[in-house]
């Protein structure tokens, strides 16, 4: 009990003496804030990108690509192959027949708002089943494109980052003229970075004959995918591989994971620098309080209370920095919308996303800085000889 109250008294004293060492203490707070803010910025970027792609994939949608294509852009599926796939087992049917959606994926140019330069925008060709497959699809403005016409609808994410796709606009892709008739949302996932139009119109305008690039099929349950695998295996006319749409997009979401690795490396290296700064601060603090500590020891305070007091000071400063850094990261980065080149060679619009988990990682970083920068100076504080108290003031 005595130890508790002693330690509390020293902690309060230390913290109240902080203004005396204002600049040194501020340096430590800022150093730890910068490290935490950087870590969070990078992690939020990687997390936002990953979520945008991951959330696009459904577990109960089978996704077919030609062998070794890796992405929709590179794949081809012939019309007769699509017809074969329609007969695969385990596919759900609705009033329009089996829920199978053959799709086309071509790239057109858009103008990036931030740089006014051209960027690759995906133009997806699909039919009614394709739209119905995507359960979180909602039309925000305007209307659906009419099949057989040069009409398209634009994803909400695209609208925010690129110029020229506003509702009612006429777009020229080469000699083809398109009219934007609607704006859609798919709850923030990667489909919102796309333009959608009727697959058959794209087939004729882009000389694709009757071929498509990828096929999606709604399954009665995720387990049905095994049956489909066997079905493809047994038919030599099919050169497709099947996986769940979820696993395809999970793989695509990893293409920015190097950002998270880079962020962790940079912030760890920077944390070492911040640590050195923080150690400087804490050693200065102990030197500054030497007489004080010795005096307390002389009137009966224990070694441990001096140790705890210094430790607490270090933790308070670093945690303060951590909070400041998290706040800065939250204010500047959370919800920040941007776009980059994704795995399909097209622009993916995504927003930075800070989650509780990421904040925990930031807090952990701050605590580590606080602990390491506290423990050595605290050890020195605990060993201040009592005699110092009786020496003349330096």
């Amino acid at each position, binding site marked *: 009990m005595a130890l508790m109250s002693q330690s509390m008294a020293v902690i309060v004293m230390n913290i109240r003496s902080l203004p005396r060492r204002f*600049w*040194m203490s*501020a*340096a430590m707070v*800022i*150093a730890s804030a*910068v*490290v935490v*803010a*950087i870590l969070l*910025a*990078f992690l939020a*970027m990687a997390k936002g990108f990953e979520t945008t792609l991951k959330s696009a994939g459904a577990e109960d949608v089978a996704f077919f690509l030609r*062998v*070794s*294509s*890796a*992405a929709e*852009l*590179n794949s081809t599926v012939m019309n007769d192959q699509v017809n074969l796939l329609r007969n695969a087992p385990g596919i759900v049917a609705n009033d329009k027949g089996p829920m199978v959606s053959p799709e086309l994926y*071509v*790239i*057109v*140019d858009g103008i*990036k708002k*931030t*740089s006014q*330069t*051209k*960027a*690759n925008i995906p133009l997806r060709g699909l039919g009614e089943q394709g739209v119905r497959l995507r359960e979180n699809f909602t039309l925000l403005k305007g209307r659906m494109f009419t099949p057989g016409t040069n009409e398209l609808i634009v994803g909400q994410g695209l609208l925010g980052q690129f110029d020229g796709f506003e509702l009612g606009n006429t777009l020229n*892709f*080469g*000699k083809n003229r398109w009219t934007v008739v609607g704006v859609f949302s798919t709850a923030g996932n990667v489909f919102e970075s796309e333009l959608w139009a009727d697959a058959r119109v794209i087939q004729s305008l*882009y000389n694709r004959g009757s071929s498509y690039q990828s096929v999606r099929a709604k399954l009665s349950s995720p387990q049905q995918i095994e049956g489909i695998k066997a079905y493809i295996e047994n038919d030599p006319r099919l050169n497709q591989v099947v996986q769940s749409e979820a696993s395809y997009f999970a793989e695509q979401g990893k293409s920015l994971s190097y*950002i998270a690795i*880079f962020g962790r490396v*940079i912030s760890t*290296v*920077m944390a*070492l*620098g*911040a640590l*050195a*700064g923080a*150690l*400087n*601060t804490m*050693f*200065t603090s102990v030197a500054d309080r030497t007489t004080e500590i010795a005096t307390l020891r002389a009137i009966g305070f224990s070694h441990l209370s001096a140790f705890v007091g210094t430790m607490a000071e270090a933790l308070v400063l670093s945690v303060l920095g951590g909070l400041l850094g998290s706040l800065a990261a939250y204010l500047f980065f959370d919800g*920040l919308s*941007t*776009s*980059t*080149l994704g795995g399909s*060679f097209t*622009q993916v619009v995504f927003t930075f996303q800070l989650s509780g988990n990421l904040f925990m990682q930031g807090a952990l970083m701050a605590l580590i800085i606080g602990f390491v920068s506290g423990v050595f100076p605290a050890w020195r504080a605990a060993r201040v000889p009592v005699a110092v108290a009786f020496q003349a003031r330096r």
Partner: protein
Amino acid sequence: MKDLYLIYKNLTRKKLRLFLTCFTIFIAFLIFGAVTALQGALNSGVEMSADNRLITVNKINFTQPLPFAYVNKVQNIAGVKEVSYANWFGGFYQEPAKQVVTMAVDPITYFSVYEELVLPDEQKSKWQKNRRGAVVGQRLAKTYNWKVGDTVPMSSNIFSNKDGTQTWELQIEGIFTAKDPQTDTGYMLFHYKYFMETQIWGGDNVGWLMLTTTDTNLNEQVAKAIDDSFANSAAETQTSTEAAFNKAFIEQIGNIGLIIFGVVFMAFFTILVVVGNTMVLAIRERTGEIAVLKTLGFSSMRVFRMILIESCLLAFFGGLLGLGGAYLAVLWASAAMARFLPNLVLDQGIVLQALGYMLLLGLITGIVPALRALKLNIVSGLQGV
């Protein structure tokens, strides 16, 4: 001499603090050097492009093809020196994850449009005669340990071979290098004609055209003439200088690059502010001693100079170590990640920039206490002692 000894004694009076301060500066410049080199590597495509080289692509997007007939039409436009063309192959070696930049090109004109590439004449003529031949850049050849005479199976993630596979057996006839070591040589070239005849879709499309102009001043005029001559056709074109084309491509990665580098540089400067603060306080502690020095007859200017030299020494000591560390890190990274980042180098520009920041750090952190020392009244200075 005596001054230097005093400066040395002042610097080393608290060894731990000296170490910690140096270490922080070390880290700051390590990050600065490494990240600036990284930024340079990402932008190197723009810097390494020839002034008189233009790229013509389909106006819809550069992934859309152009008719083969455009090659001759462009050749006849005034101001065009030489035209070549290429098709993207979407190549990979053995497994889809091992992507290899592979292009089907015209073996006669390619190397005259890309003059900075060096391929021995003997190898070049052998390649031109062998339909199934390919030439490989030195960096790529090193990656997979390929040698002249090897036959390598190259697969495509886009095209299918008429033999029912997606693989083409190519014979390496030559290995090309570049005049400038920063020019990327991590790719492979093979015959356009052979590619077109063996892939199932056939057709007579090219992916894009690259051409040189007779004079850099004609670039704009030539680009406009090309685009005008194909206006209102089924495949309209967009011609730009190679530098502009590469820059636009880098812009596709977008402002996440800007955000990353912005954040890192902000951190670099914050660390400098933090460490500068420590350095200022370290000298401020010595107000009494400075008054003693002045009492002993050291002139104000001499003390002023000593303090400035001390802070600059500290900044350069930590900073140069950091730059050295960055150099090693870059050296390691460029060897380990040659496939992704071909042009990672810590060049002269970065070193000069870093030296500038070190000087700035030394001067700014030194000037405040040095000025105080210059103006210090001996009597009030000694009062604290």
